[in-house]
């Protein structure tokens, strides 16, 4: 089965599979950068037991597609894939994987970093943190894909 460039799935994530899909179409490129986001065992002084991720799936897929469009505009020589997992994820397991290929390392790193920054800004996914003694919904950014200052901020971080 072909691997899609964007996915929101309750299944365990497969970084080698995503890298193969992203890089397979780009034989001759000189760089692949990847990022794996893991469930951390602590957060804001709490001992985390596990995370339960919820997504508004059709909009999440659309937002991920928008991020890939933005990356194509900013770094046309890259090809990027992003998969996000949902449901209960244990400590140390991957919640998000990103792979970016480019002829040169600078754009591969930048595209990869930009992708995760934008995921945190505009993709409708939420962490329900279960910790020792309770649980809490984490809330970060108000999602607004048209917020140009947020997009610029992600771009600056990616190019730092």
């Amino acid at each position, binding site marked *: 089965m072909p691997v899609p460039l964007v996915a929101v799935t309750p299944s365990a994530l497969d970084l080698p599979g995503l890298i193969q899909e992203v890089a397979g179409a780009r034989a001759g490129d000189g760089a692949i950068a990847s990022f794996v*986001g893991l469930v951390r065992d602590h957060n804001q002084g709490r001992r985390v037991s596990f995370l339960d*991720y*919820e*997504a*508004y799936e*059709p*909009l*999440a897929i*659309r*937002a991920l597609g928008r991020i890939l469009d933005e990356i194509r505009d900013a770094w046309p020589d890259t090809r990027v894939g992003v998969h*996000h997992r949902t449901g209960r994820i244990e400590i140390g397991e991957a*919640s*998000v994987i990103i792979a970016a290929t480019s002829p040169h390392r600078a754009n591969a790193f930048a595209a990869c970093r930009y992708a*995760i920054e934008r*995921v*945190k*800004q*505009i*993709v*409708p*996914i*939420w*962490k*329900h943190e279960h910790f020792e003694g309770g649980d809490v*919904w*984490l*809330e*970060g*950014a*108000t*999602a*607004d*894909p*048209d917020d140009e200052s947020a997009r610029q901020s992600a771009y600056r971080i990616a190019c730092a």
Partner: protein
Amino acid sequence: MRVTVRLFARLRDLAGAGELVRDVEGPATVQTVWKALVADMPALGEYERTMSVAVNADYARMSATVREGDEVAFLPPVSGG
């Protein structure tokens, strides 16, 4: 007219349901649907300044027009990654 309301994360917990059906008078906007919802469940009101909204799984503004059968979603600040 009838619309489907989708709520996520803590908004869903506060409402006690992730999917609701609401009858609102047309012509309606997302704002109309939100006001009807908060009238029923005042606890949701705290999200008015921080939430995002979507119509038929596409980001929208509070002023966006809502039609019969549309799916209107209210989204707390996101925390993916």
